[in-house]
């Protein structure tokens, strides 16, 4: 447990943040409770085998880069017809009751130390409200971080029969040099027969420590889909999770990551099947170069009442360098026998025969490798239905390969 941040955090600071956003009393209370809980909470769980912590979050010096009242960002929000895409201040005015009902209902504000820290200190963020029956186009949110620390909180509510696709791009401005801390919480609720697709392209500066938790609840016949693209940051610890609460609900978690330099990605994809006829599909592909490291945990948890479950998971990692390290733990936890479930994980390098084939056709080796790496991401890119997002990710991968 760490209390490093706690030392320089005060109730006054939290109250000041709350005042600036014009928050109601209940939200301030929630923040203060989260602040108060910091002393008792542990760091988020990380994969641990006896004798080894795979991601050491305790070692981070949060105190040095978390200054509660020092936050700056640029934010673009592009909304779609029929959807409210609002900053917190506006959202609290327009949908106060809804937010009170939904806030913290999906992500427990005191889930762990870093989540509680986010709850206490968030100053940036967006509320996306899709009223009943509205089928919306794409909503895009661009966040550019311009301070040493930024706490971002996104709440998505799609009512019954509503549908929305949200794309979020996270990047860093030039205003601040040195180490930074980005924290993002996303909670999404899809009502009956509603659909939420939430894509994130994380392209933060490579001196940024990044903690994110994204979690969705899918109602009856509802769908919550996640796309998680990780390119930036020095260290990323992220969890993308869906609870399939309603019967016949579905979730797809698609991940892509590309690490180079000494980047460290600790990625988790988790699904809980809690009702009948639920389906989940988890696909992650990653590439590691230089001395980059990835830790992947995938959990498919089939509950006792989850009759007729289908659950699939695939994780493939491509290693381009001998100094890189890839660790994976795809877990299956099955409590109902009426289940078809599978998971698989592979780690390998660029196929020698493919490379030989291409070089023998006079493609230079480096170009051939780049093409094969780009090709490796194709099955994941194909899962991304939104063209803009797909092209964005594809472009960043190509750029990185040619750096």
């Amino acid at each position, binding site marked *: 447990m760490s209390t490093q941040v706690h030392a320089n955090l005060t109730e006054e600071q939290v109250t000041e943040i709350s005042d600036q956003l014009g928050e109601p009393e209940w939200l301030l209370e929630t923040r203060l409770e989260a602040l108060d809980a910091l002393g008792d909470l542990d760091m988020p769980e990380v994969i*641990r085998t006896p004798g080894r912590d795979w991601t050491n979050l305790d070692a981070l010096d949060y105190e040095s880069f978390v200054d509660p009242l020092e936050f700056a960002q640029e934010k673009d929000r592009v909304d779609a017809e029929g959807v409210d895409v609002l900053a917190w201040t506006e959202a609290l005015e327009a949908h106060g009751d809804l937010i009170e009902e939904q806030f913290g209902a999906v992500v427990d504000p005191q889930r762990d130390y870093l989540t509680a820290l986010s709850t206490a200190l968030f100053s940036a963020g967006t509320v996306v409200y899709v009223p009943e029956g509205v089928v919306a186009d794409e909503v895009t949110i661009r966040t550019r971080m311009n301070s040493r620390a930024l706490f971002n909180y996104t709440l998505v509510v799609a009512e019954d029969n509503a549908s929305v696709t949200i794309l979020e791009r996270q990047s860093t401005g030039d205003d601040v040099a040195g180490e930074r801390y980005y924290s993002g919480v996303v909670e999404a609720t899809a009502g009956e027969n509603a659909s939420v697709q939430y894509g994130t392209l994380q392209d933060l500066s490579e001196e940024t420590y990044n903690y994110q938790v994204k979690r969705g609840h899918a109602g009856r016949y509802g769908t919550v889909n996640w796309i998680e693209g990780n390119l930036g940051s020095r260290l990323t610890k992220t969890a993308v999770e869906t609870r399939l609460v309603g019967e016949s609900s579905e979730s797809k978690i698609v991940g892509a990551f590309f690490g180079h330099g000494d980047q460290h990605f600790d990625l988790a994809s988790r699904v809980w099947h809690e009702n009948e006829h639920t389906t989940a599909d988890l696909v992650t592909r990653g590439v590691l170069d230089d001395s980059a490291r990835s830790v992947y945990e995938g959990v498919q948890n089939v509950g006792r009442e989850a009759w007729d479950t289908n659950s699939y998971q695939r994780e493939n*990692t491509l290693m381009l360098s001998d100094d890189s*390290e*890839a660790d*994976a733990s*795809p*877990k299956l936890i099955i409590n109902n*026998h009426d*289940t078809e479930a599978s998971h698989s994980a592979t*780690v390998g390098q660029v196929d020698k025969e493919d490379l030989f084939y291409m070089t023998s056709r006079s493609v230079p080796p480096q170009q051939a490798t780049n093409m094969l790496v780009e090709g490796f991401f194709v099955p994941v890119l194909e899962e991304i239905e939104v063209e803009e997002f797909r092209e964005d990710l594809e472009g960043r991968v190509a750029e990185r390969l040619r750096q």
Partner: protein
Amino acid sequence: MSSEDLQDTNTEKRFEFKKEEKSAFEAEKGLTEETIRVISEDKDEPEWMLERRLRALEQFKEMPMPDDWPAAPDLSEVDVDQIVPYIRPDIETRGGVDDWNDLPEEIQDTFDKLGIPEAEKNALSGVGAQYESEIVYQNMQERWEEKGVIFCDMDKAVQEHPEIVREYFMTKAVPPSDNKFAALHGAIWSGGSFVYVPEDTTVDMPVQAYFRMNSDGMGQFEHTLIVAEEGSEVHYIEGCSAPKYSEFNLHSGGVEVFVKEGAHVQYSTVQNWSKNTYNLNTKRAIAEADATMEWVSGSMGSKATMLYPSTVLKGPGATDNHITIAFAGEGQDIDTGAKVYHNAPDTKSTIESKSISKDGGRTNYRGLVHMADGATDSSTSVECDALMFDNDSTSDTMPYMEIQEQNVDVAHEATVGKIGDEDVFYLQSRGLDDDDAKQMIVAGFIEPITEELPIEYAVELNRLIELEMEGSLG
């Protein structure tokens, strides 16, 4: 074998000796230095072994219980402070059961249904039985002795082959510092087997060993040490293929296998401990260049099992294969898997794990594949399949893969499914009843395991599974 013969054995003398010491033990709670000294003196051990025991005891005291693992079996009932004082009363109980009919009905019944031949049934019912298995081994030993093969119990090996034992015993493969129960084992181990196969020697028949549980009060901490020298070959079968009558609730064995350059060792176990046993074993092999290690195991019994046979692929070209099956019925938590460390180039491993859970049982595959930096051109493939019978049961898969080398090929696959209604229907429509149909499907499911076992063990494994399934289906 008559009871008179029994009285003549050394065992009985030791038994008497222990009885005398009993009160001293009762006064002590937990595992003490005194306990260890008595065990060691009892066995007339050399000083170095006593020292190793005492060092292990220190480590045992310092180490935490493995209860902070994700979803680990519940070990709260395992009170290590109570374990050792139980040794002595247990000897008395065991000594008292020299008649087949004194065994608990459940175990007798199992033997009957297993169709274990009368001779073997006697063999497992008392000390005489042990003698029976010694005869078998004596017969074979002559053949092996000529070639320099050594096969004896571990206590004897300490006396007669100290130079080999001293080099390998809990020094390289399973040091007591490995985990709390390895340390416990290092402190109070007793019995087990010692196998030494000289260079270029092939032992063409499987070496089978039944533990001397009945003649030795600490048999549940048995140690097995196998040293296969360069170019040799041996297949060792662990004879805990039947439930053992025991008041102990803890089994904590240690297995160490050394597979030298080009050697080939297969280690097979069919474990069917009584359902009050906590089975917390440490098994590890070290494979040198071009060596092959094969683990074949069936885990049927016990209340809770935590066992992850490991192989360190130390030399280039070394190979490791794991084939395991776990069956968890009511109240059982079988947490088992495999660990492979690829520490050299061109090493290969395959893990094939099958599990069946029913009536609220829990199976878990917990595995680790480690590809060290420099293990170029190595490959591994892990396959886990779980079959579930009902909604009260649980089946988990928790593999870990640590990959520090790019030039490798790693694949893990796991599937979980229920027993296919269509398959059952198909077989029923061909005239099989529901039970038979399901048993046939299970037999087919585990066939990759059974075909690796010698025929009598395969038959036994199938029978054990039939027993587990009997009456609870349809």
